[in-house]
């Protein structure tokens, strides 16, 4: 065994930059996922069967197919149909965001359903419209219930974003590839990459734990 982690040192900034990019695309993708998920999740609870069916199909397709395939469809497949290339960065964010939307939709639907039925009834009995009741009464309570699963979704997506490496997008995993190629030593760079992911996921989970405890206090 000839492990030598000092070879990492000159490349440390590349890892750091990669980690930053990873967090950035994950955050953007989760944001996009929340926007999509809000509509799709509420759509699954719609009065109209057509909207329900459309939203259910979205969720089924997203959750029933591999993320890697979705990324390939986006990056390699879409240009063939649209006639224009999509750069790696937007392709990665959109593929991850659309994927996340399917999972967030279920989180949002679950959160809304977890709010007691009497809340909607009380709001409506005061003369609020359905959308006012949703906005002021149901969603604020639902969001509180959604924070833990949304946090998990963020962690999952943070790890899954490494798949963007396959379309040549320079994030954290890609940084490991580059360093491995330059030093001819794959072990140390990939261990470093893993350590970066671990620090981020553990750090985020801790933050989430603190947030949850704060929210629990206000209950």
């Amino acid at each position, binding site marked *: 065994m000839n492990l030598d982690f000092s070879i990492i040192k000159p490349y440390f900034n590349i890892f750091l930059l990669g980690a930053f990019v990873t967090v950035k695309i994950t955050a953007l993708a989760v944001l996009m996922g929340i926007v999509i998920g809000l509509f799709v999740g509420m759509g699954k609870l719609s009065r109209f069967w057509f909207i329900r069916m459309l939203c259910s199909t979205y969720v089924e397709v997203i959750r029933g197919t591999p993320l890697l395939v979705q990324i390939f469809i986006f990056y390699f497949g879409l240009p063939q149909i649209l006639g224009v290339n999509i750069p790696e960065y937007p392709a990665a964010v959109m593929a991850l965001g659309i994927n996340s939307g399917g999972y967030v939709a279920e989180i949002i639907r679950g959160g809304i359903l977890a709010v*007691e039925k*009497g*809340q909607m*009834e*009380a*709001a*409506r*009995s*005061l*003369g*609020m*419209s359905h959308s*006012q009741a949703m906005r*002021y*009464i149901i969603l*604020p*309570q639902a969001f*509180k219930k959604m924070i833990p699963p949304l946090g998990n979704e963020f962690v999952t997506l943070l790890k899954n974003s490494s798949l963007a490496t396959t379309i040549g997008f320079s994030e954290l995993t890609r940084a490991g590839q580059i360093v491995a190629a330059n030093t001819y030593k794959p072990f140390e760079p990939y261990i470093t990459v893993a350590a970066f992911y671990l620090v981020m996921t553990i750090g985020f989970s801790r933050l989430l734990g603190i947030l949850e405890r704060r929210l629990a206090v*206000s*209950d």
Partner: protein
Amino acid sequence: MIEVRNLYKNFGRLEVLKGINNKVEKGEVVVIIGPSGSGKSTFLRCLNLLEEPTRGEVYIEGKNLMDPRTDVNKLRQDVGMVFQHFNLFPHKNVIENITLAPIKVRGESPQQARERAMQLLNRVGLADKADSFPSQLSGGQKQRVAIARALAMNPKIMLFDEPTSALDPEMIKEVLDVMKDLAREGMTMVVVTHEMGFAREVGDRVIFMDEGRILEEGTPEDIYNRPQNPRTKDFLSKIL
């Protein structure tokens, strides 16, 4: 004020209301009693369209609820409702619970709504709880806030669905007292409750429901002392 004609309500194949006819006059206090599952809550909830009647007609101040042109949200402002389990908004404090609908639905200014809310809190004896959250209140206090919340919309009719049956015995009185005051001030009220004291003191009429029908109605005196229908007799013998 309220007129119900031939009201039917089905849940799927279950027929819960089987042709209800009734009229409630302005200022009248009507108490509904009856065994569990007889359709009391469903009847009450048809009066503000929390349940949609299957057929029949409901008129509130001459407006037909079943008419698709009727603005349901507008109508509900005139019909306040108090629930068995209070249904306060747990993420809002007491004053916000009361002012939310006046501000968002009626467009009152926050200050105006707040002043009115404080008046109402005074009236239900909870002015010192304005900034508390529902989770910090006792059951009786929660229900009094819920009553204040409903009153903040200046309803013409108040519906109560077993407002005291989720309360510990020592808290029942404080809620009933608020309701009695309301009744004496001339509010039109329809109250599902088995509190006989309340019915005798301020009730104008008692309705006995069983299996989706009104089997008997009359003054509290008549119903409690001289029930005619054997089912009414049987029911009263069980709860008294």
